[in-house]
């Protein structure tokens, strides 16, 4: 049987190969925190973390995730117990309608790991070294998550606060 681990619990994968990872999470596992925006990999609302990497759950078939470990927004925090990133989004008004926010938070969490691993980006001056963390770097690295309310500058402010308060090895588990 094909199975995947979601937020620490193993689940059998759906029998219909057409089921996307996103629809499986939302409709079969009743984890509606992950959002369906464009459903075509253009908006990032469906971002989840698979084996430590952020990806668009709308563009993947659930059956391709046998053996994978998947983290959704439900595992990152709750209304009673917000994660560091979520608190920073609240502090900085990093959202208005909130629809893109679960994807933004998942993306930001994985971004911190990428920074911690020394990954370069398209705006890094010298890609052979670990890039300095600048506003421009953060904007580039969050460009896969659209916010139609336009909270971008506040989202970046939230990330800057978390990165300032938590050295990267801690930020990665924020």
């Amino acid at each position: 049987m094909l199975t995947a681990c979601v937020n620490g619990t193993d689940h059998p994968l759906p029998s219909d190969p057409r089921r996307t990872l996103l629809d499986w999470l939302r409709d079969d596992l009743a984890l509606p925190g992950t959002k369906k925006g464009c459903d075509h990999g253009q908006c990032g609302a469906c971002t989840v973390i698979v084996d430590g990497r952020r990806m668009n759950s709308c563009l993947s078939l659930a059956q391709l995730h046998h053996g994978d470990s998947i983290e959704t927004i439900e595992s990152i925090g709750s209304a009673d117990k917000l994660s560091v990133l979520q608190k920073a989004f609240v502090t900085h008004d990093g959202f208005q309608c909130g629809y893109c926010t679960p994807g933004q938070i998942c993306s930001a969490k994985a971004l911190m790991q990428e920074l911690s691993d020394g990954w370069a980006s398209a705006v890094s001056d010298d890609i052979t070294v670990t890039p300095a963390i600048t506003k421009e770097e953060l904007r580039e690295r969050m460009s896969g998550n659209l916010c139609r309310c336009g909270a971008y500058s506040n989202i970046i402010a939230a990330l800057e606060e978390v990165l300032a308060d938590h050295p990267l090895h801690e930020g990665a588990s924020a």
Partner: protein
Amino acid sequence: MKAFTLDHADSSASAITAMAAGARTIAGGTNLVDLMKLQVEVPDKLVSIRSIGLNDITQDDDGLLIGALVSNADCAADTRVRQSWPLLAKAILAGASPQLRNRATTGGNLCQRTRCGYFYDTTQACNKREPGRGCAAREGFNRIHAVLGTSEACIATYPGDMAVAMLALDAVVLVDGPGGAREIPIARFHRQPGDDPSRDNVLEDGELITAVRLPAPTGGVQVYRKVRDRASYAFALVSVAADVTMVQGRIARCALAFGSLGTVPWRDAAVEDLLVGETPSPALYTRAAEVLLKDARGFGANDFKIPLTARALAATLHEATKG
């Protein structure tokens, strides 16, 4: 999505067997699943190649071997790629989003399909999607379309960045299939549309990409310049990949490849021949652009790509040669 079956191969051999029985491969799925949702692609059978290996990068005296299943993110993050083939890392990082780069694979990226809006819209005429139906793009909204390598049947671009860098780096595509393994220089991998735009590349039925080999680095300055409508997360209007070696103020070696300019990643030996031995100057860049674009033809909304390419080439050559 139209109904299909999905099997899971555990080796290249089992994938090739499934392909011989009519299955299409799926790895990251970032392009294929999107096209299946729109019923632009309607495969009856898929075979997942996620668990067949081919996900390592190895280096030897001949260069670097990038497994077909290496994700775009892992390739761009690889220390060897960043140090010795930075052009490839820069091109990959200029494309898509972090989420997509984590999922998309090296082999899949080479096989990604055009983003022509008429290819994506099944109510419109498209010879690539439905041979013989016509091309709505020629008289339509063709701002993103090709100005080189077009045919009566198709003016769609190959949209990617990674392959453009690989073309400038003289990469070789390694494939395996029912007829055995073979190597295809990337300059011959993608096909111009001619009268059969449905075939984007020269892979035969049942052939699987297993790796891409990069020859040893040239030691040149490597630059990737991408011009697009947004600062990030957008396909190129034009991109230029350059690997240029200067000796005593003159261009000693020069490899140039262009993305979203032609129907395939574009390279023109005549342009490189013109540049080699010369001292960089704006006048030289203009002559190079004239050679590159002498057969370029716009279709209205994309006419701007011709002067834009000349300027992008000049800017790239200036950056690569300024020392």
